[in-house]
């Protein structure tokens, strides 16, 4: 039989039971719409996190202290810090792939000045830090190479710190005290907003690392060395280079393990989006359950339909329909119902995702593959759950089917 004829027969009998068809479809509609909305929410969250990771800087390579082990018990990152400013300087001198390198010396301290005081993070860095993190001065100017070389007591205030100490916006040129050492405010950094985990990136003050090391007590070790490469393609090679240079600097033998960790931005992104990914899979999984329930609904209705139409099946067989014709008819019916439901669900899902994003302010992102997935899945549901009833129909004995009341 021609394919167009099959579809025509199926569509004819679907149209003859509009209400029942609509109700059957509803299960698939809701299932597909739910999957799409959930995927959109998950994708939205994920891409927001990626955006924030990218906000850290471009082509970033990050060196952090390694972990020490005591009798087989790992002590966690940073417990055995052998990173030094010299490591950073060696990278800058001898590295070939780096656009910029900066050590980051971190401490917490009270900053006093202006309207009061504020406890915040003190970062000691080189001028290249601003280039790596793509951070500009919103007010005043970034401190200079000369400031770093001269260990001058200049400070850049993060946006949060600046607004809390100098609410009038007159921070530049003022004096603040950090651990009783007076610093001159060179400028205020532009606002960066929150990290993926909700930490305020602007709650920070930045000083030259030379100054931090010599003038502020407790700034001996380097918490982090940040470097950036010229192009994203260099990142892998750069990580290798960093490794060999620092191993050299730390005089590690061939058998010794690294006492530091080298990561890149995508490692960070990976870690950060891991949770969200699990979350969005979970959401999609829950939503697919409703798709499954929709499929069972189709099977239910198709079984009822086969029983109800036993006589029709008998008539069709008596006038020459083969078992395979009947099977295909019912199969096409369930596939048409579910694909139609899938398409409606698709439209509803796109609309729903947009609406949800609008109401809640979450970023939602509907991946274009969702179209294929939704249609493919609903067709598969139709075939899977339509097959059993269709086979029941095809296996009927024409004599008994004709006698069925």
């Amino acid at each position: 039989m021609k394919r167009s004829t099959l579809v025509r027969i199926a569509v004819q009998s679907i149209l003859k039971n509009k209400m029942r068809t609509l109700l059957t479809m509803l299960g698939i509609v809701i299932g597909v719409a739910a999957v799409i909305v959930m995927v959109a929410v998950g994708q939205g969250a994920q891409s927001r996190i990626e955006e924030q990771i990218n906000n850290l800087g471009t082509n970033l390579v990050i060196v952090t202290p390694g972990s020490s082990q005591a009798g087989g018990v790992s002590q966690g990152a940073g417990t055995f810090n052998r990173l030094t400013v010299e490591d950073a300087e060696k990278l800058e001198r001898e590295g070939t792939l780096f656009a910029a390198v900066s050590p980051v010396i971190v401490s917490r301290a009270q900053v006093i000045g202006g309207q009061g005081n504020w406890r915040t993070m003190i970062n000691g860095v080189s001028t290249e830090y601003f280039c790596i993190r793509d951070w500009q001065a919103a007010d005043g100017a970034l401190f200079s190479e000369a400031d770093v070389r001269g260990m001058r007591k200049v400070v850049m205030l993060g946006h949060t710190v600046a607004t809390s100490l100098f609410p009038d916006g007159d921070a530049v040129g003022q004096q603040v005290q950090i651990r009783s050492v007076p610093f001159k405010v060179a400028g205020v950094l532009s606002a960066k907003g929150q990290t993926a985990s909700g930490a305020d990136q602007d709650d920070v003050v930045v000083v030259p690392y030379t100054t931090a090391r010599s003038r502020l007590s407790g700034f001996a070790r380097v918490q982090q060395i940040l470097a950036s490469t010229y192009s994203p393609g260099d990142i892998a090679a750069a990580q290798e280079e960093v490794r060999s240079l620092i191993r050299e600097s730390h005089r590690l033998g061939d058998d010794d393990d690294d006492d530091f960790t080298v990561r890149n931005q995508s490692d960070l992104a990976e870690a950060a989006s891991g949770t969200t990914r699990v979350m969005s899979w979970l959401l999609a999984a829950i939503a697919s359950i409703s798709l499954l329930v929709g499929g069972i609904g189709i099977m239910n209705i198709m079984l009822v339909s086969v029983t109800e139409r036993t006589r029709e099946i008998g008539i069709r067989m008596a006038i020459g329909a083969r078992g395979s014709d009947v099977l295909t008819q019912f199969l096409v019916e369930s596939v048409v119902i579910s694909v139609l439901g899938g398409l409606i669900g698709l439209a509803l899902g796109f609309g729903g995702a947009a609406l949800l994003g609008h109401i809640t302010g979450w970023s939602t992102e509907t991946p274009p593959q969702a179209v294929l997935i939704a249609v493919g899945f609903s067709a598969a549901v139709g075939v899977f759950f339509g097959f059993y009833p269709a086979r029941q129909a095809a296996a009927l004995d024409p004599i008994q089917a004709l006698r069925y009341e």
Partner: protein
Amino acid sequence: MSVIRIDNVTKVYRSGQNEVPALRGVDLSVAAGEMLAIMGASGSGKSTLMNILGCLDMPTSGQYHLDGVHVNQLGRNQLADLRNQKLGFIFQGFNLLARTSALENVELPLLYDRSGRQHDSRALAAQALERVGLGNRLDHVPSELSGGQQQRVAIARALVMQPTLLLADEPTGNLDSRTSVEIMALFQELNDQGITILVVTHESDIAAYCRRTVEVRDGLILRDEPVVQLRRAARDLRTLAAPPPVGGPAPGAAIGEATRSPPAGSP
């Protein structure tokens, strides 16, 4: 050449331990152009015979040849194709698809045609409906048609594939007496055009419109004889008072009865 030839056909139904014989060795031969009634009370085996003749059921033993095809050797699919190509079924309960127009109902067998013939199924279906006098009822669904009209749609559906044999199972069982005569008039008209018709009935009134009567009892053929005095349904209709309720032309009206030869006997 015979359209139907069955030799020593038996059919035994099994129910649990018991074996119930429905047919116990039946021989029957039907020539092309015949109009034959199979009669019998319920339980006589006539329905079983009908199912076997209709290729819906297989005999337990014995041979069945339909239009030269040895039916015994066919599989399920080939039987379906045979029903599609060579047989036209007419049932007591009409068995039309509900909520489906007359045209679509008649078109149905054409949709299952695997012979590869090219045809305009709509036009053929319309022609068949025209032939049974329902040319002006193409788009009506069964619930909008009277019993007689529904049976005409069923006859059109049976005719549309130009089968070698029309099999009518109690075709007038659900109809009033006047409509019954109308349907029989239509059968006679079709038979006059050369179509072989086999009517299963338990009413001798209806059998009287056929040219040959076969009576089945207890799974055996009891009697097989030509009808001596054939009744013409069209003539009977004229003696019945009420005008036909059908919108189409009165069945049999076109037949030139004066020129008809007296009833032919069975071969």
